[in-house]
C-alpha cells in the first residue's frame, strides 16, 4: 500500500454513491483562542518549560530591540521586528526536535535564532551581505522566505519526502495573516492534507499586512476556519500566551509525527513595532490600539503567571535579562564589524559549474577590479 492510499478516499456524495464522509466537526476551531496563562490550564503546565519560555521571550525581545537599533546605526539594511510576537517565534522553535525542520518567513529571524541559528547569520540577509547567511542543513532551518507563502509548499514537499523515506520528521512552517491570501497558501495546505504530510502551519495573525488590517484581508470567522476546507484540523490560540502556543503546537507536531497529517494553527497576536524600521505605522493605526495590546504583552503575561505562582523571583528575572544582554552585546559587537565581501562571489553558486558565459563575465569583472574600477560607482 502506498502512502497515498493510506487514508480513506473522499467519495462524491450524491446518490447513488452516498458514503459517510470525514466529519467536519472535529476540524473546526474553538470559538475563542485557546489560553493557558491566567486560566486553570496553567496549573498543568510544566514549570521548567514555563521558565525556559520566559528566558527565551526576554532574549527574543532583547534581540528585536538590538536588531532594530542596528538599523539606526546603518548596520542592518532593514529589520522586520517581531516585538510583541515573541511567544509565537519562540514556541515554534522549541516544539521541534532536532531532526525536524523550521520554515520561517522573512519576519521570523527570531524563530531561527531560538532554534540555534547564530544571530549574525540569521541577520546576514537583512544586513545586505548575502541572501542566506546560514547553512540550512545545520539547524534544519530553511532560508528566510520573502515571497509570501511560497515557503509553505516547500515545507509540505520536505515533510512528504521525509515520510516517503521513512523518517519521522515534522516540518513547521510560519506565515502571516496577509500571506494566507496568497494562492501558495491554498495549494500548500491542500497538498499537505491530500498527502497527509507531517506539517504544522503556524499563521501569526498580527492584525496587519503592512498597513492592511485583517478586515480587508479576509471575511472568515477566523483564519483557523480555513482548515476544514482542506480536511485538516484548525486550531485557534492566543498568540501572546507562550504556554498556550507551545501546547497547541506541541499537540500539532505530535499529531503530525504520528501520521495524523497536517494542522493549521492560527495564533492571534499583534505586531507592536512598525512593519519594518522603514515603515510609518501611525499612517494606519492609532496609538490607543497599540497600547491596548501592550497590556496583553507576551512577556508580561508569562511573568505574572510565573511570579504569582512563585516560580520566578527578582533574581530569576535578572538572570534572564543578563543572558539576553550578553547575547545583545555579542551581536552588537559582531555586527559592528564590516563584513568582508569578495565581488567575485557574484559568480559563485549560480550553477554547480559556471557556464562559459559566466566565466567570461567573471574574467571581465576580475579585469575591472584589477584596473581599480568599481562597477556602478566608477
Amino acid at each position, binding site marked *: 500500500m502506498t502512502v497515498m492510499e493510506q487514508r480513506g478516499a473522499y467519495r462524491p456524495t450524491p446518490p447513488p454513491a452516498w458514503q459517510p464522509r470525514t466529519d467536519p466537526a472535529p476540524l473546526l476551531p474553538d470559538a475563542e483562542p485557546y489560553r493557558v496563562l491566567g486560566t486553570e490550564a496553567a496549573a498543568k503546565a510544566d514549570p521548567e518549560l514555563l521558565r525556559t519560555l520566559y528566558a527565551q521571550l526576554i532574549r527574543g525581545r532583547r534581540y528585536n530591540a538590538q536588531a532594530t537599533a542596528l538599523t539606526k546605526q546603518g548596520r542592518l539594511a532593514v529589520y522586520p521586528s517581531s516585538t510583541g510576537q515573541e511567544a509565537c517565534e519562540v514556541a515554534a522553535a522549541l516544539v521541534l526536535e532536532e531532526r525536524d525542520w523550521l520554515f520561517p518567513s522573512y519576519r521570523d529571524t527570531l524563530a531561527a535564532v531560538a532554534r540555534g541559528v547564530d544571530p549574525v547569520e540569521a541577520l546576514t540577509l537583512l544586513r545586505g551581505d548575502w541572501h542566506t547567511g546560514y547553512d540550512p542543513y545545520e539547524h534544519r532551518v530553511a532560508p528566510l522566505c520573502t515571497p509570501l507563502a511560497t515557503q509553505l509548499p516547500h515545507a509540505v514537499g520536505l515533510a512528504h519526502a521525509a515520510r516517503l523515506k521513512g523518517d519521522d520528521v515534522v516540518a513547521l512552517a510560519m506565515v502571516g495573516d496577509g500571506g494566507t491570501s496568497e494562492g501558495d497558501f491554498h495549494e500548500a495546505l491542500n497538498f499537505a492534507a491530500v498527502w497527509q504530510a507531517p506539517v504544522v502551519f503556524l499563521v501569526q495573525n498580527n492584525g496587519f*499586512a503592512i498597513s492592511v488590517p485583517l478586515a480587508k484581508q479576509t471575511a472568515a470567522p477566523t483564519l483557523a476556519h480555513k482548515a476544514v476546507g482542506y480536511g485538516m484540523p484548525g486550531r485557534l490560540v492566543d498568540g501572546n500566551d507562550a504556554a498556550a502556543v507551545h501546547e497547541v503546537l506541541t499537540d500539532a507536531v505530535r499529531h503530525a509525527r504520528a501520521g495524523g497529517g497536517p494542522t493549521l494553527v492560527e495564533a492571534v497576536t499583534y505586531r507592536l513595532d512598525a512593519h519594518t524600521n522603514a515603515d510609518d505605522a501611525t499612517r494606519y493605526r492609532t496609538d490607543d490600539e497599540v497600547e491596548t495590546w501592550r497590556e496583553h504583552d507576551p512577556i508580561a503575561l508569562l511573568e505574572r503567571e510565573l511570579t504569582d505562582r512563585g516560580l520566578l523571583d527578582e533574581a530569576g528575572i535578572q538572570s534572564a535579562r543578563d543572558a539576553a544582554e550578553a547575547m545583545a552585546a555579542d551581536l552588537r559587537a559582531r555586527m559592528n564589524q564590516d563584513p568582508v565581501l569578495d565581488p567575485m562571489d557574484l559568480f559563485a553558486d549560480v550553477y554547480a559549474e559556471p557556464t562559459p558565459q559566466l566565466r567570461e563575465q567573471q574574467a571581465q569583472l576580475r579585469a575591472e577590479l584589477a584596473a581599480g574600477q568599481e562597477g556602478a560607482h566608477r
Partner: protein
Amino acid sequence: MTTVAVKPATMAQALTRALRDAMAADPAVHVLGEDVGTLGGVFRVTDGLAKEFGEDRCTDTPLAEAGILGTAVGMAMYGLRPVVEMQFDAFAYPAFEQLISHVARMRNRTRGKMPLPITVRVPYGGGIGGVEHHSDSSEAYYMATPGLHVVTPATVADAYGLLRAAIASDDPVVFLEPKRLYWSKDSWNPEQPQSVDPIGRAVVRRPGRSATLITYGPSVPVCLEAAEAARAEGWDLEVVDLRSLVPFDDETVCASVRRTGRAVVVHESGGFGGPGGEIASRVTERCFHHLEAPVLRVAGFDIPYPPPMLERHHLPGVDRILDAVARLQWEAES
C-alpha cells in the same frame, strides 16, 4: 499670462500627480493593490488618492497578486480602467499567468470585442540597497509577451506623461517604474503638467556623433554621465532613451545608429536573454552596413540579483560603459 515658477519635483510625485489627474479626468480609473490606500503605497506613489477619491476608487486589496490582476481583468471587462500596483518587481510573478494568458490576449481572443485597458505599475530594478526579491529587472519577460505594451520613464516629465498615456491606452500596459529614480528630481511643474506623450517614441536625450548609447529607465542617467565622462576620451556619445520597449521605436534608434555607426545597448537586466539581445539584433539587421563595429551590450551579469553590498559591482556603471565604447573598434577593421 503669468509665469509659474517651475519647482523641482520627484519622479514619485509626478507619478502621483498622473494618477490623480487621470482619476479626476475619468471616473472609470480605479487604483488597486497592496497598501495603496491608507498607506499610499510603500513608495507613496498613491499617497492621498484614497482620501481624495475614496476607498472604492483606490483600494487596498487582499495580499494576492494573481487575485489583484485577475479581478482587474474583470473590472476592465465591465468598463473600468484599473491601474494595478505590484509592490515590487519580483512580487508580480504570482500574477504571471493572468498577465500572459489573459491580460495580454483578451483583445486578440475576442477579436477586439473585449479590450482590457489595464495599467500594471511595477517598481523595478536595483540600486536601492534592497534585499533579495526587491531589485529584479523583469522587463525581458514582458517584452517577450505579445499583446502588452512595455513602457518605462527615465525623467520626471516622462513619468507623468507616459503614465497618463498608459492609463489612456486601450491596451494593457506594463508600466515599469525605476525604483532608484523615484526620488530623482527635476524642474517639473506639477501645476502645469505637460501634454500626454504618445507611447512608442524614443527620444534622443543627448546628441552626439561618435557612437550611440541605447538605453532606458534607470540606466539613462548612468549613460548621460558616461557620455559626459567620454568627452575626456574624445568621444561624443549620443544617448537614446527608448521610453517604450513595446512598441519599439526602430526609426529613432536606427536613425541615430546610422548617423554614428556605432552603438552600445545599456541596461541593468541580465544580459543573456535580456532586452539588449533584441535591441542589438534589430539594429544590426537594419543598419548592418552602417556599422563600424558590432553593437555591444553592457548589462547586468547573468546571475540572480546580488545582495546590496555587492550590487555596485553588478550594475552597469560609467566605467563599464566606457570600456564597451572603447571596444567599438575605433582604430582599424580586423
